[in-house]
């Protein structure tokens, strides 16, 4: 963190126990439930007190709640921001009180956080494209048209996935004939896929930047009498349980796994270092980014990942 404060040797709230505040994007999603578990487990392992705040997918709640954690005297703040670009006022307050801020996932929004743990979203998109091209070839299809279903336009992390996918798949000689938003929602993903199929019945693959839409798209493919592995290679992102189940049952070709629990643990490690004022090591020092690797999961390896 910044060393402008003459912070006492102990911590903000006067007692010896370190208090960590964790502000989470939305506890209604399994992804973030796992992130919370990973963060909490690592923090309690260190003997820290853990305070949780749920942003409930609302930037106003995000700012209010994270600032409240700082007011309550946490020693360090970990945050997976609903809106990365709304980190500014939170970090301003944290700086004023000498509280280091570690960002988890989603993005940093250009504010001066201490570190950010981030999945390689663009890299994940690339993995998806590589797999798709390979699988299309393995299926013996010659079609060169593919489609992409995107999240809501404001989701920066999701845009990176799509960008990574698009760049790679085009490099492999495919054309993205449809690029439509399902606003991150399963219901809309299903409908959008139906429309894509009506216009381009010949698409060879479809990439979706989250799993609810990916699995929904796979369902739409099945409902059109086609196979989401063999006919239209359907790939999602996240490795949500429904995607894993679907892959096992040949209902989805692949997904890109992030490991939210590991990311959570990593943020605690960085928080600890920041509190101890040890220098942090970054994968991308300019953006103070620490990468958490992503992994492609398909039928081949689905049983080997936990």
């Amino acid at each position: 963190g910044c060393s402008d404060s003459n912070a006492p040797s102990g911590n903000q709230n006067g007692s010896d126990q370190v208090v960590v505040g964790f502000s989470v994007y939305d506890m209604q999603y399994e992804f973030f439930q796992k992130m919370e578990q990973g963060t909490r487990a690592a923090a309690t392992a260190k003997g820290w007190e853990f305070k949780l705040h749920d942003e409930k997918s609302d930037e106003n709640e995000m700012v209010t709640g994270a600032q409240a954690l700082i007011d309550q005297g946490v020693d360090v703040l970990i945050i997976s921001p609903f809106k990365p670009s709304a980190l500014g006022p939170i970090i301003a307050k944290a700086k004023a009180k000498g509280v280091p801020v570690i960002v988890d996932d989603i993005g940093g929004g250009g504010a001066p956080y201490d570190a950010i743990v981030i999945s390689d979203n663009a890299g994940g998109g690339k993995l998806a494209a590589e797999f798709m091209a390979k699988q299309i070839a393995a299926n013996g299809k010659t079609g060169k048209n593919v489609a992409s279903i995107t999240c809501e336009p404001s989701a920066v992390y999701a845009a990176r996935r799509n960008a990574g996918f698009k760049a790679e798949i085009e490099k492999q000689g495919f054309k993205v004939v449809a690029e439509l938003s399902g606003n991150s929602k399963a219901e809309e993903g299903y409908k959008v896929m139906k429309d894509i199929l009506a216009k381009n019945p010949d698409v060879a693959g479809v990439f979706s930047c989250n799993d609810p839409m990916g699995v929904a798209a796979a369902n739409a493919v099945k409902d059109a009498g086609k196979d989401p592995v063999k006919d239209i290679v359907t790939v999602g992102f996240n490795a949500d349980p429904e995607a894993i189940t679907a892959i096992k049952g040949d209902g989805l070709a692949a997904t890109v796994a992030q490991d939210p629990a590991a990311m959570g643990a990593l943020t605690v490690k960085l928080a600890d270092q920041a509190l101890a004022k040890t220098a942090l090591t970054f994968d991308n020092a300019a953006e103070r980014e620490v990468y958490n690797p992503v992994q492609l999961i398909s039928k081949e390896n689905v049983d080997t990942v936990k």
Partner: protein
Amino acid sequence: MTAVLRRLPLLLPLLGTVVVLAVATDSFLTGANIENVLVAAAIVAVPGLAMTFCLAMGEFDLSIGSTVSLAGVVCCSAIIAGQPAPVAMGIALAVGAAIGLANGMVITKLGVTPFIATLATLVIVRGLSLAYSDGHDRIVSSAALKYLVGGRPLGVPMPIVLAVVATAAGWWAMNRTRFGRWVCAIGSNREAARVSGLPVDRVRIAVYVLVGVAGAGWGLLISSQLQKGNGQLGMGFELDAITVVVIGGTALLGGRASIVGTVLGAVLIETIRNGLNLLNTPPAYQRISVGLLLIAALAIKGIRRAEARTMPVPAPEAAR
């Protein structure tokens, strides 16, 4: 023809949209796509028809989107727990009816305004659905559930069959039965309905139960498509259901209802949405187009109404 247009003013914008899309795309008028649009329209039309009764009565039900979610979670959980799919669907519909009953009782017996009562149920039922599913998907693989959207009796997709039956029944109930007339009577002048001795509270409760059941049915259709239930599904659906009714011509203040208008409203909305997807419209422009088309569809009606107003009827307009 002009008489038909006057009674169903939405036909004109609908035809216009169809013509534009037929010219602008080469896939709009394919069989697969038309079926695609009609199925999507059928799926909103069914709850839209129930909502038509609610609006005709001069009231709203905002809780329907949450009912969609809870019904799906309940149905899928029941299937996972080993219930036969038809039983699970029955339970889900019963849950929908219970939500409707709760709405109806809170509104009629506790005197809470429908807007707040159903907004509260929206929040509560969403909470129940999330708490019950703990944010997890309830994934099923059920042929019987799938039949709701995938079945093809006589070659016709099941949602279309359901919508046709619901439209016929809705039209009959609204325009030819005492229940429908009482609904419009309540929407037209609630005080008069009370003074005339109509069973106002019973009718209102019945309408909320109807919407609850239809909301659950909507949830089953969505869960049938997705083969899962979860706490996130159906968010914002209340506005979708109300929108098809309102653009279909049912008065927001009640008293008048257009069952066929609701169906046309559903077809128009889904046609626009499908067309924008066929044209590969980026999401920002999709939003703008949907908004402008909504306004345009109703502006055409509005202009016609303004023309009609320059030839005034003898009696002063009723105060509404």
